[in-house]
């Protein structure tokens, strides 16, 4: 699914260069459910930016599917983000002035699909996350868990092969967190590759495998998640 080899990233801070990612090397197979863990400042958001084609890297190689991601034009990058990757954020990032349905439909807007068609599709996806009756509500009228479900429906609507979730349960209580993780597991079981960035060991434990970052370096990359011994053996489905 994706492969990073010797990826380095520097940030220029004043006259100093900050080495944020150091020779990051790992691979995620199709249909895997992987957690990326690390303390804040360990470089995990930078890594997520690079994985999501929201940021460039300075050296090394990043391949998404069969495509080498480097020096893409902005519109090319936008198109890949739109068709290959679904994002789920800690703070949901729904557009506050759009209804749940319109929020879910937004990625299809950027594919040039007609309003009627995309609202139809969006309704199906809302149904899948159990929010069919909330289609016409604004985000401000929904609970955190509901908002995150809407965000997940939005991430799924363009039929991406990869879901990147950045602390998806960071703003939720433990019960809701569990439900959201259940949802992500379900998605994984449909064959979509899911990557979760988290600092919560309980979240990481729900995945098949954890990649740990410390000071921009990968440590113990191939450690299987203890509480899900059976999962690693599951065959990877290609959507």
């Amino acid at each position, binding site marked *: 699914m994706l492969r990073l080899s010797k990826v380095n990233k520097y940030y220029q801070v004043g006259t100093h260069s900050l080495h944020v990612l150091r020779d990051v090397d790992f691979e995620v197979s199709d249909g895997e459910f992987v957690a990326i863990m690390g303390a804040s400042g360990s470089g995990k*958001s930078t890594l*997520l*930016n690079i994985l*999501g084609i*929201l*940021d460039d890297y300075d050296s090394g190689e990043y391949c998404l599917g069969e495509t080498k991601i480097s020096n893409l034009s*902005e*519109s090319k990058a*936008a*198109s890949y*983000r*739109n*068709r290959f990757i679904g*994002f789920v*954020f800690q*703070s949901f*990032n*729904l*557009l506050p*002035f*759009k209804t749940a349905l319109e929020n879910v439909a*937004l*990625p299809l*807007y*950027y*594919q040039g699909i*007609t*309003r009627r068609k995309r609202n139809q599709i969006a309704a199906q996806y809302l149904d899948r996350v159990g929010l069919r009756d909330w289609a016409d509500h604004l985000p401000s009228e929904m609970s955190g868990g509901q908002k995150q479900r809407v965000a997940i429906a*939005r991430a799924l609507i*363009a039929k991406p092969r990869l879901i990147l979730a950045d602390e998806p349960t960071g703003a939720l209580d433990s019960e809701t967190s569990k439900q959201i993780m259940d949802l992500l597991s379900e998605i994984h079981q449909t064959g979509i590759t899911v990557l979760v960035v988290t600092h919560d060991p309980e979240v990481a434990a729900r995945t098949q495998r954890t990649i740990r970052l410390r000071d921009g370096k990968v440590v113990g990359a191939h450690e299987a998640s203890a509480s899900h011994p059976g999962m690693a053996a599951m065959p990877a489905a290609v959507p």
Partner: protein
Amino acid sequence: MFSLDRWLEVFDTIRRNKLRTALTAISVAWGIFVLVFLLGLGRGLDNGLRANFARDATNGVWINANKTSVAHGGYDVGRRITFENVDYERAKKVEGIEYISAQHFVGGNRWGASMMTKYGAKANTFELAAVYADSLRLQAHEMTQGRFLSPADIAQTRKSAVIGQTVAKFLFEQASPIGEWITIGSTAFQVVGVFTDPGGAEEERRIYIPVSTAQLAFNGGEKLGQIQMTVGQAGPAETQAIIDVIVGQLAERHNFDPTDPQAVRVHNNIEQFERFKKLFWMISTFVIVIGLGTLAAGVVGVSNIMMIAVKERTKEIGVRKALGATPWSIVFMITQEAVFLTGVAGLLGLSAGVAVLGLLGKLDNDFIVNPNIDLSMGVGAAVFLVLAGALAGYFPARAAARVNPIHALRDQ
């Protein structure tokens, strides 16, 4: 290029930000309103100027005999100059003159003689002007009945009289004055015409009689007090040249220094008109500069507000980019919004400006006549607005397109 969806996105944003939209719209509408109003006002002032000058020939020149102020040819200062019929005949031959007349001041009264005029039992004093036939061309008079004085009236010293409307109303009331005999002083004159003047009743209190008849009847010899002429299409410089020739002739015959500023007094409508035109041109230019400045401030205001809007929408733009919005789609979204806002607000301002100009035009005012802007100006303003809107939107839009999604999304 047209996409209903894109417009719906724009309307969505506008609806959601009523205050911001209103502020932006007001600043643009105000700018355009001021520009249109000032442009129209400038036009109105210009029209007013022309209308004012239309009362008398705008290309008229009046030369009055006066007193010398420079000793010349053995004569002391303070000598009174009087023109004579010969001066008129000589001036008539000068190249460039279109119409020429001269006036004899009856009784030597330089401010127009007031003469007791009688018809039957009615009597009043009216202004008497003894002139040549071309005199009509120097005034804005219009004949309502009969005719003006003819060259034959002058040549044959006929006792013809042309009277103003006020005179006709006073002496004859409803009856037709043509062919009737009136007594001016103690001489009888036959009315041959009645005139009206846009200047109103005061201008119509006048009676014209042939210069030759006046000189005979009122013991005027061959004296003339004023030579009057028009110079056709001549500009200020050419007009001055014609004046110089005539003053030169007069100076030669009457022995005064041609550079003497007092011996003859020249009143030149052209110079006056050109001076006013220049003044009004400066006012108009000033007004346009202020208008454009106001509009520019409005456009900068829009740009500013859009810039703030982009800041405020950083998160939204970040989300859109993460979901697959291309930089161009972001630029389009912001620019389209700005163009739409400036366009609609501009048209409102334009309409308001035209409406206020219409009201202003209804006021009865001598200085501002028919203030308006023409179609090309309106179209120009509309095109300008769209361009200004695009410009006002483009720079903030470019800033928006550069938003880094992750920074935007991390920004709580």
